[in-house]
């Protein structure tokens, strides 16, 4: 992104400014990194009550088969992601990723069966490339990036009760359910999902009514606005990958410990095994393993270990074994947390390795992810 390109604004930009947000450039958008409460308190508030995030910068995409059949759209999209989409029922959502010919990850995404089409949410920084990728490879489908919708995330243990004030039926939804809902007479799409490790919702709303709906949610005493800073610390504690940091074209889904997102139908011996870019490598790694894996890392001391810190087998910096991909302070863990890639000899939880921080080699313990206990309503 060159510095001369003016930053884009989401439909909630004016609201962020009026709430006193500190704005930063993110993926070409002028986005709130924090509000006056600050990252630490915003993080803890989300885990204790409900946090409202503006994620309108993300790409909302409709994939509709020219035949009109959702099954045709699902079959087509399966050629780009190693996910069972034909087995995804109407009103249900699934996590997935676009893979490339080398078995690397082009982007991660959420895929919803909307009955007669698929609804896909992709990362802001990748959305143009993802749409071009789908248009190039899904010849039987119309691929449309929605430019007239905002996306709100409402996360936390009191998200359901806060949203129920606008739409009481929300309480009947389960984790990864997706429903049409009318909020303040606006046609919205609500999914019970998110990226914080908490129960919560993502709400696709028409841009014109986004501010009104956000304000109505913020009127709830449990609901506070939350910036991208806390979004990052929340997802890190939840062990969730940030595209561009923890996963990219140099990491395969198996190296990234994301094999749980590849259903049986797409694996060796499954009904529709393979048939996605990089399938040879990915299916082989599912059977035979990889030489490195993404793991949780818990620094033993108080010092945060940030992304790009080098990892060593020993405390003298003799044998470099990997790199931290995300790291910081976990407000709910009340200490530093990180994740990164290590050789398979080092993946067992409890294994002690070392991270280089300002010339020192600090002990870190390989840990199971997530660092917190998620509260998804399964």
């Amino acid at each position, binding site marked *: 992104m060159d510095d001369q390109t003016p930053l884009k604004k989401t439909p909630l930009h004016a609201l962020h400014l009026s709430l006193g947000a500190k704005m930063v450039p993110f993926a070409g958008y002028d986005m709130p*990194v*924090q509000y006056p409460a*600050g*990252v*630490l*308190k915003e*993080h803890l508030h989300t885990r204790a009550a409900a946090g409202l995030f503006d994620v309108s910068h993300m790409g909302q995409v409709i994939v509709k088969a020219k035949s009109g059949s959702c099954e045709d759209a699902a079959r087509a999209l399966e050629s780009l992601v190693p996910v069972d989409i034909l087995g995804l029922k109407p009103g249900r959502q699934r996590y997935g990723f676009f893979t490339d010919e080398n078995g690397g990850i082009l982007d991660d995404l959420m895929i919803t069966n909307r009955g007669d089409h698929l609804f896909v949410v992709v990362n802001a920084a990748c959305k143009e490339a993802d749409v071009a990728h789908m248009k190039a490879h899904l010849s039987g489908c119309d691929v449309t990036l929605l430019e007239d919708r905002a996306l709100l995330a409402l996360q936390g243990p009191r998200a359901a009760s806060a949203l129920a004030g606008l739409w009481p039926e929300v309480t009947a939804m389960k984790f990864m359910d997706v429903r049409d809902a009318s909020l303040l007479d606006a046609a919205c799409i609500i999914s019970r999902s998110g990226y914080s490790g908490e129960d919560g919702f993502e709400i696709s709303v028409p841009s014109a009514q986004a501010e009104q709906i956000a304000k109505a949610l913020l009127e709830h005493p449990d609901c506070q606005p939350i910036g991208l*800073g*806390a979004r*990052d*610390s929340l997802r890190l504690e939840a062990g969730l990958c940030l595209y561009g940091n923890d996963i990219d074209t140099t990491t395969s889904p198996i190296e990234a410990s994301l094999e749980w997102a590849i259903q049986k139908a797409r694996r060796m011996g499954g009904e529709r095994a393979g048939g996605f870019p990089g399938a040879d490598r990915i299916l082989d790694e599912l059977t035979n393993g990889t030489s490195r894996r993404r793991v949780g890392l818990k620094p033993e001391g*108080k*010092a*945060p270990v*940030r992304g790009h810190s080098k990892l060593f087998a020993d405390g003298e910096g003799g044998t470099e074994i990997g790199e931290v991909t995300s790291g*910081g*302070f976990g*407000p709910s863990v009340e200490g*530093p947390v990180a994740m990164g890639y290590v050789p398979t000899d080092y993946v067992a939880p409890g294994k002690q390795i070392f991270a280089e921080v*300002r010339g020192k080699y600090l002990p870190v313990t390989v840990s199971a992810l997530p660092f917190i206990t998620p509260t998804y309503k399964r």
Partner: protein
Amino acid sequence: MLKFTAEHEWLKLEGDVATVGITTHAAEQLGDLVFVELPEVGSQLSKDGNAATVESVKAASDVYCPLDGEVIEVNQAIVDDPSIVNSDPQGAAWFFKLKLKNPADADALLDETAYQELIA
């Protein structure tokens, strides 16, 4: 005598010893601190060299040494509870005491009026 730097440190000068901390403005900009690393007592620091590190949830920031000198005391209280830096940055949350190599060098630092103009 109280002096300031453009890097948002304050210094309280008593003879040839300067007590050093970060300003209220700096603490506000950094947000809630979660980690503080201080220099070792006895270390010789140079002006503009790294003296300490402070970290918020989001990022690490360096605290620079305002003048040449030797660290004679550090404030363990802010290591044990970094939130003191946010609640009382120009009081209880001093970082370290520096025995100045050339106390006269402090004259060139900003006074409070000049610092307030800088951050205005």
